[in-house]
Structure formats: C-alpha cells, structure tokens
C-alpha cells in the first residue's frame, strides 16, 4: 500500500497515456487516428532510447556519439528473431520480441563496452564517434546481417501471442509500446538506486575518489554501458515492431544525435527530462517538418539556446520553481512572466519569419512551393516582409533584454524570501 501511495504519479501517467489516443478517436467511424498513434508510439520508443542514453550522459557523465549503434543492433537482432520465429526455427511470444532486441543490445553493449569504456570524457566521446561511423558503414557493407541498403523487413503479425492479440492495428502496437516503455522506465528508475547506479554517479563526479573507495571506475562504466545497451536494444526491438523494417539509418550518427538533443533539451539532471526532450524533438521533427523545411534549424537553435542559457534543460527549469511552489508564492511570478511574453513572442515570430523567408527563396523556390500564411501568399522577393522580420527580431531582442533584467530582479527577491522562509522554522 505504501508502494502505491508513493508511486501514484507513475500510475496516473500510465492511465493518462492509455487514455490520450482517445482524444484523437474518430467516433463517427469508430476507429483511432493512425497518425496520432504512430506518432505516440514513436515518442514512446524514442523516450526509452533517450532514457537509456541518459544512463550514460546524466548518470555516468559519459558523452556518447554512437548510442544509436546499440539501438540499431538491438533492432536488427529483434528483426532476425521475428523472422526465425516466422520460419518456425524458434518459439517466442510476440510480446517478448523487444526482449530479444534488449538481449541483443546487452550483448553488443558488453562486447563494444569492453572497448569503449577503457577511456572516459573526451576520449570516450571520440571512440563512440568512431565506432558509430564504423558500424554505420559496416551496415551497408555486410548483407548477411544488415541486409544492405534495403535493410531487414519483418511481418509483425504472428500466431505466438500470449494474449491472443495479433498486432494488426496501430492501437494494439501502441499498447505494446506503452507497456514496454513503462516497464523499461520503471526498471531504469530503480537502477538509479542500485549500488551500481550510485557508483556511476560517483565516477561521474570524481572518478579518482571512486577509485580510492575501492571501486574500479572502468568496471562501473562498463556495466553501466552494458545496461544502457540493454534498454537501447529494447527500444530498437519496439522500433521494429512499429515500422516492420530496420535499415542502416537506425545505427547512424543522426539517430545518436537525436538522443543527445532530446536529453540535453529535456534536461539530463532529472529522470523525466529525457522524456520531455523526446516529446519536444519528435513533435518538432514530425509536426514542424510537415510545414517547414527548416525544422532541423529550429532544433539546432533550441539546442544552442539551452546549452548557453539553460544547461539544466526544460526539466531543470521547471524544477527551479519548486521552492516557490512550496512556499505558495508561485503566482507572484505570473505578472513578470506575462510581461516577458510579448517580447519573447515578437522575437520568436521575427526569427521564424526570417528563417522561413530565407528558406522559401532558396529551397522552397527550387521545389516550386510558395510562402503562404493563412491563404495569403507572401512575395519573398519584396523588401517589406524582410523589413518586418528584421524589425521584429531587433525590437523583440532589445525589449526582451530589458524585461529579462526586471524578471531576474523579481526572481532573485522571491528566491531570497523562499530561502528565508524555509530556514526560519
């Protein structure tokens, strides 16, 4: 019972996520929106991937540029397993296919981990970068395991389901993804509290002292890397179940970079930061890319802004409000926030307009597209929209600077009060 009382947010989150697709349910035709479900499944998979990445970056302080190697190799293992099951060589319930991916990730995490965890810090980052390049090049070279450019295709409809579900509809797949994502998240959360998880923190903060205490930092890194490989592999196995194909871009540097962006934007310090970052990145990727050519630019700029001004990430920013929440003075920040909103909006719109104007004069023109806002076509060659964009950008930046100063003063005063209140009794 205490377990339930302490962990109710997890169950609430699970219930909300289970109910969420019904917001997009088409009641007249009585079926789910395929797009929404696929998007949410994608978020689920990438969230596991980002969380497993954070086992390295956040927990052990290991910056990896090749985490997609474990994800992709897990996906390949799962795909081969499904094909073996189909051929009748082995028997495995459909629900446990992601576990096959996870075991694949565990195996490769162990083998490759022996190599990469010999070093830490920048050298570790470089080895993983090289390894990522090696594996993604090898994926195109060796047909037997990787299937070349075509990749490995599977058919996820199997007769071996434990629950009697055939996984023909996106809704069934979403439930599978959600179930596995939940289990993986719980396990990763619990892993943080194990001695290994604590020692990973210790080697991150001061690996020499960790050595003095009697632990071998390399072994800690290796075990952490192997476990991260397991969870990345589970993500890879789910990826195969959603898309029924795995190609070389699952091991590519772009995939690794996505995890890094998601974790850093969301915040590596908090457990749910990577999930938050994944939602932002996947929505930008799938949503904005429909509207704009420049989605990667927006992600890049968001990333740089986070690195420069908020290295704690979105989750960290939210966490900073906790002392005010406890003292019940959060609403006093409402006015400063409202005052900062118009200049921030102005800056944002000016920037977007400028980017889109540039994008439509070159890439858009080459693709024969026209720039239109609300049905109104905008002539990208006339100086007026450019002048508006630059003016909004400049004025917005200047105004925001002044508001930010005022905001900072108010914030500092409130924080000071909160600290005094907390210290008084």
């Amino acid at each position, binding site marked *: 019972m205490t377990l339930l009382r302490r962990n109710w947010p997890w169950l609430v989150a699970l219930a909300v996520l289970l109910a969420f697709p019904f917001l997009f349910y088409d009641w007249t035709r009585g079926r789910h929106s395929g797009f929404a479900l696929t998007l949410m499944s994608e978020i689920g998979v990438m969230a596991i991937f980002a969380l497993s990445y954070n086992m390295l970056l956040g927990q052990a*302080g290991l*910056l990896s540029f090749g985490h997609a190697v474990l994800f992709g190799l897990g996906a390949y293992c799962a795909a081969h397993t499904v094909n073996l099951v189909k051929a009748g060589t082995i028997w495995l319930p459909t629900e446990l296919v992601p576990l096959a991916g996870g075991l694949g990730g565990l195996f490769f995490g162990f083998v490759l981990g022996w*190599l990469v965890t*010999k*070093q830490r*810090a*920048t*050298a570790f*980052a*470089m*080895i993983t*970068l*090289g*390894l990522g*390049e*090696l594996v993604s*090049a*090898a994926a195109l*070279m*060796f*047909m*037997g395991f990787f299937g070349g450019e075509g990749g490995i295709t599977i058919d996820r409809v199997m007769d071996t389901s434990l629950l009697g579900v055939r996984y023909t509809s996106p809704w069934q797949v979403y439930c599978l993804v959600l179930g596995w994502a939940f289990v993986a998240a719980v396990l990763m959360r619990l892993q943080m509290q194990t001695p290994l998880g604590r020692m990973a923190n210790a080697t991150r903060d001061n690996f020499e002292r960790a050595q003095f205490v009697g632990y071998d930092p390399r072994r800690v890194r290796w075990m952490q890397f192997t476990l991260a490989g397991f969870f990345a592999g589970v993500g890879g196995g789910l990826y195969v179940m959603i898309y029924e194909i795995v190609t070389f871009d699952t091991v590519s540097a772009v995939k690794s*970079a996505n995890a*890094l962006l998601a974790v*850093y934007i969301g915040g590596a310090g908090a457990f749910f930061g990577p999930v938050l970052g994944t939602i932002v990145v996947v929505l930008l990727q799938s949503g904005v890319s429909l509207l704009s*050519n*420049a989605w*990667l*630019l927006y*992600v*890049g*700029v968001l*990333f*740089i802004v986070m*690195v*420069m001004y908020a*290295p704690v990430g979105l989750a960290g920013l939210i966490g900073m409000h906790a002392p005010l929440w406890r003292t019940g003075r959060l609403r006093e920040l409402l006015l400063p926030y409202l005052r900062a909103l118009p200049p921030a909006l102005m800056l944002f719109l000016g920037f977007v307009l400028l*980017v889109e104007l*540039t*994008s439509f004069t*070159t*890439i858009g023109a*080459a693709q024969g597209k026209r720039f239109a806002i609300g049905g109104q076509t905008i002539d990208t060659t006339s100086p007026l929209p450019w002048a508006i964009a630059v003016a909004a950008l400049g004025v917005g930046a200047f105004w925001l600077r002044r508001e930010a100063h005022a905001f900072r003063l108010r914030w500092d005063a409130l924080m000071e009060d909160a600290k005094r209140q907390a210290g008084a009794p």
Partner: protein
Amino acid sequence: MEVFVVSLLNGLVYGMLLFMLASGLTLIFSMMGVLNFAHASVYMLGAYFAYTISLYVGFWPALILAPLLCGLIGAAIEMWGLRRVHRHGHVAELLLTFGLALIIEKVVQMTWGLLPVPYRIPELLDFPLFRVYGTQFPAYRAFMLLISALMFGAIWLGLRRTRVGLVIQAALTHPEMASALGHNVPRIFTLVFAAGTALAGLAGVIGGNYQVTEPAMAFTMGPIVFVVVVFGGLGSLTGCFIASIFMGLIQTFAVVFDVSLADLLAQFGIAVTASTPFAEVLNVTLPRIGALLPFLLMVLILVFRPRGLMGTRDT
C-alpha cells in the same frame, strides 16, 4: 609503378588538405580542450564564401577574403559562445560547437540551396602541369600543395620564432602558468580560435573546387579530421602533420589495391568458401573498406595509446 606514383601524389594532395583543416583544430583542441565540431562546417563556409566572392571579383581576392571572413566568424563564436559556456565545462563547449555545426549546415542549405554549386578551378591554373607515365597531374593540385606547404611553414615559424607564438606554446602546455605570468590567456584563446577557423576557411577555398562544394561536405570531412587530430596526438603539430599525410595516403592507396583477407589467406593455402565462418568479412575487398580504415585506426589508437602518435598528454 605508375599506379603507385600517381596514388602517392594524390594521397599527398589529400593529406595536405587534411592537414590544413587539422592543424587549426589541433591547436584549438590542445589549448582549450574544446573539440570543435563546427570546424569542418567552417571549412564548408570557406568554400561557399569563395564561390560567392569569386562570382564577383574572381578567385584570387577570394583566397584572401574568405579565410578572413571565416576567422571573424571563429572569433565571434569564441567570444560570444564558448566563453559563455566555458564555466559549464568541456562537455557544454563541445555541445555548443555540435549545435553550431547543425545550424551552419542548415543555413548553408538555405542560402545556397541543396544542390552542389558550380565552384570551379580558376582558369589560370586549369592546365596539366606534367605527366607521370601518361597520367596528367593538374597544376591546381600542385598549387594546393604549395599553399599548404607555405601555410605549414608559416605556422611553424610563427609558433617558433615570434613572441606570440612562444606565448601560445606556453599556453598550450601550461595554461594556468601562462595566465599567472600575466599573459591574457582568454585573448590568446580567441586569437588561436580565429586563426584556426581562418585556416579551415582557407582549406575550404582551395579544397572546395578540388572536391565538390555541397551542403554535405562538412559531414563527410568532419569525422576524418577528428581522426587525424586524435591520431596525431594532442599538442603536437608534427604529429598532426604526419597523421594527415598518413591518412591521405591510406585513403588513396586503399582505393587502388583490390585485395581482401581471403586473398591473404589464400597465400597461406587456406581457401575461403561460402561456408567458412565470417566468409562475408573475409571477402570484403580493401577499396570497399577504405573509408572505414581511419575510424578503425582511431578506435584502436584511442584504446591502446590515448595520447596519439606524438602527443604530450592523454586525450
């Protein structure tokens, strides 16, 4: 023999191009500990700047102007970006340049389009210089060799013979001590960063029309330059030079020799058939894995000798 000489020359040209990029990166990396992911992006910017400038005033002014522009961009990155995130540690600095690389690639795509631009060799240098065994050696490649050799000489003399060079060398090995002796180390950082990016820009100017000027050129060049820097070792310009030439030669020669491990085993009387374990790995020919070799070497050297070929300290 013919193949050998031609490959040697081409490998040398490619290696010197790598060195122009890597020398700036290795100075920045050894001094500030920042692995600049945006370095190859600046190389790309150099090529695009040179293309645009050469449309209006010709190639020769572009040879001067484009690197200067790149140097200014580098100084701006250091002063307003890196210095700000410096207090959050090396990882934050690395991530900043990583984000910049993403942005620069996208900005280039948006400014010059997704397709390669027709950036060509200047007409003055567009003739075969000499023939080796019937194969022409273009004058432009000789020009590239000349520029990079001049640059190597200039850096060498600048670091060894000038006062600024001595301070840079001091800051390279003992930043705290140089700072304690009253040298303005942050300003030296800016200077080195600007000079390094200007060199990358120069490499872009002369490399852009040797290879193809396209938005993906930073992505193909970047990892290889990292390999060179890590392989050569931290704080060693000579190591960097040797590593560049070595990588250039490896990449060129790998394309020429059409052999595989199976052929090697056949020399010892072991025949590889389809049923042999790892037959696919053994049958891969050298030209196909040519692009892989640098990364393989980098992983191996980082694992077994993290200070690189001639480095003075660990990566």
